[in-house]
């Protein structure tokens, strides 16, 4: 009768290891006896993602990843439907393994290039380049060029926008609410933009890496981290709510500009774009508004932050465009880019939430709604300049 009360002291940690041990056993059984072997009497699924293709004079380099469920052996390489000699770092690709293939080929700038991999089983995996273009070399000069690009699309316009601070200080409460709501509208536009682009990149990433999950994980982590940060700083921001909000907005915009720089840098490197005068003008107008958004909360509180704060705000919002341009130009990878865009989208969403709560009367006052709609509309109209 005492059976119920007989208790063998099994440590809790040992109990928790039981499921782990059983899962381990399951893995062993599956590998040892292959119970689903009969279900797999179908041809192997051979998939290879072209993660990056670079063009040097007389030379094409392919960075590949096996993103299918089965191993892939690359037997031959065709360029424009002709077998071509190549060097492979590894022609036997296990699941998720990467390889680099180098082909000495007299490619011509501006012409399309069709690259086909023929696997050992005769499957053909095709990657088409719309127009071949020299891949920028990783040197000081090119880094400089990309930095200038980042400064043009990020640092300069944002810094100019910060100059609105002095006029905001003299604005009435109604107008301040209007400009805060304007900022929310602007950020909402950037959120849509970042999300759209991030999802597109997610689709381009190697299927096995699940770009969509990377995007979503990035966004959710950004949201929770910013909330935690806000919480941690709660006590210290007393009396300086405006400055605190400004930094939050600058961070959100900075992450967005990181993605923007990444996209532009990658497109430039891939020869997909040509920067035009109109384009740079468009960026200037479009991103100058981002500066206004950053200083909008400062006017309300009547704060007069030191000049160094403005420099820092401008740097936080603008400099990531340079980093992004570098990353996009030299180490672009769609999967990591999707993650980066997810982080930016999450950060922007969190900033929208925080600012919205801080607007007196919220967004549904005349000034709030007017500002919100104006922010969306202004961003849309200036975006047309870059279209």
């Amino acid at each position: 009768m005492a059976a119920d009360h007989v208790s063998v002291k099994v440590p809790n940690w040992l109990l928790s290891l039981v499921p782990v041990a059983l899962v381990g056993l399951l893995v062993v059984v599956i590998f040892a006896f292959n119970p689903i072997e009969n279900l797999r009497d179908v041809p192997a699924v051979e998939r290879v993602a072209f993660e990056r293709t670079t063009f040097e004079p007389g030379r094409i380099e392919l960075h590949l990843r096996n993103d299918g469920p089965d191993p892939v052996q690359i037997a031959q390489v065709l360029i424009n439907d002709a077998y071509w000699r190549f060097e492979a770092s590894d022609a036997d690709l296990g699941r998720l393994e990467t390889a680099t293939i180098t082909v000495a080929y007299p490619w011509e700038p501006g012409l399309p290039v069709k690259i086909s991999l023929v696997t050992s089983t005769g499957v053909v995996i095709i990657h088409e380049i719309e127009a071949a273009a020299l891949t920028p070399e990783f040197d000081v000069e090119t880094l400089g060029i990309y930095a200038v690009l980042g400064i043009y699309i990020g640092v300069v316009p944002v810094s100019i926008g910060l100059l609105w601070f002095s006029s905001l200080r003299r604005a009435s409460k109604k107008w301040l609410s209007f400009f805060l709501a304007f900022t929310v509208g602007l950020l909402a536009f950037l959120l849509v933009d970042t999300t759209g682009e991030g999802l597109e990149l997610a689709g381009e990433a190697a299927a096995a890496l699940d770009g969509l999950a990377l995007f979503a994980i990035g966004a959710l982590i950004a949201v929770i981290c910013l909330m935690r940060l806000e919480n941690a700083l709660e006590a210290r921001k007393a009396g300086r709510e405006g400055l605190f909000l400004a930094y939050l907005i600058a961070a959100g915009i900075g992450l967005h500009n990181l993605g923007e720089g990444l996209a532009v840098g990658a497109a430039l490197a891939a020869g997909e774009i040509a920067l035009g005068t109109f384009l740079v003008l468009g960026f200037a107008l479009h991103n100058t508004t981002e500066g206004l958004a950053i200083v909008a909360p400062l006017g309300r509180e009547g704060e007069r932050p030191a000049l160094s704060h403005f420099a820092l705000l401008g740097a936080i919002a603008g400099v990531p465009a340079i980093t992004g341009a570098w990353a996009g130009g030299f180490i672009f990878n769609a999967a990591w880019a999707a993650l980066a865009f997810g982080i930016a989208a999450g950060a922007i969403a969190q900033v929208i939430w925080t600012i919205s709560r801080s607007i007196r009367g919220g967004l549904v006052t005349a000034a709030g709604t007017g500002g919100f709609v104006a922010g969306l509309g202004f961003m849309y109209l200036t975006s047309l300049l870059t279209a």
Partner: protein
Amino acid sequence: MNRRSFIKTGTAGALASAFLANQNPAQAQEHEHSDVTGHGGNMTMGEVDHARNGFDPHEILTDFDYGEVSKDASGRTVREYEFIVENKEIEIAPGLFYPAWTYNGRVPGPTIRATEGDLLRVRLVNSTDHLHTIHWHSIHPAAMDGIPGAGEVGPGEEFTYEIDAKPFGTHLYHCHSVPLKMHIQRGLYGALIIDPKEGRPDANEMVVVMNSFDTDFDGENEIYAVNTVAFAYAVRPIKINAGELQRMHVVNITEHDPVNSLHIHGNFFNLYRTGTSLVPHEFTDTISMGQAERHMIEFTYDTPGNFMFHAHQTEFVELGWMSFFEVE
């Protein structure tokens, strides 16, 4: 707004040229030079394991099968053959394996060689799961035609074809079971060469079967070749002697493309259409051939050196149908 697509259509850029002047792609080709000889970079990588395949294009070239020879009561020459249909994975380019259907484990199948008037007795044994035949491009009775209903052999079964060797010429045999395109493209074909009774002048004789392989079965070929292996005679040229008469039997069994062709470098050849004449029809260096067309050509190289021969469909050249004679 899509920051990558929008700029694609962007206006011509003054700033862009300022930014990117040093990256002008027009300078890209300055140092471009191939370090590969022969056919430049346009070549497969690696080597085909001919031993594993069980056949070598260089051996197929001059491998004429005269059969088991006997005489019947009337003194007529009888040539007996056994063809076993078997499925076999063959390496058609280095590292690239194709699920072939074969006569006697090779693609093309054995080259049958007889003299006009001989009796050919070919026993077909089917070791596969599909129906198969041997259809002859020759003059023969309907019952020996090798089509569904006349000499078709089921799995595990066999049938013996008896045909007269006529007319003399360069001919072809292939499986005629359905689906026809599939049975041919998988490798069930070969050359049938019937010599005229009076014979021909001495020559170095070769047989080349133009074929192709659609490795991913999408209706377009990934490989073009003669005697199956892409670039086989470019990787290792065919050695021939200067001053010696060369006689080549050329058979076109390319699938998916209606026309193949043959062009030889640095020389002209005498063309005997379908090999059915003792005098040449034409003197040329290029001949186009429809599916199942075949010809006999004769030529002599006077000077040593490497001479290409290949299809003049450049697309086929780049996909493997490129070869060399090494004249010594």
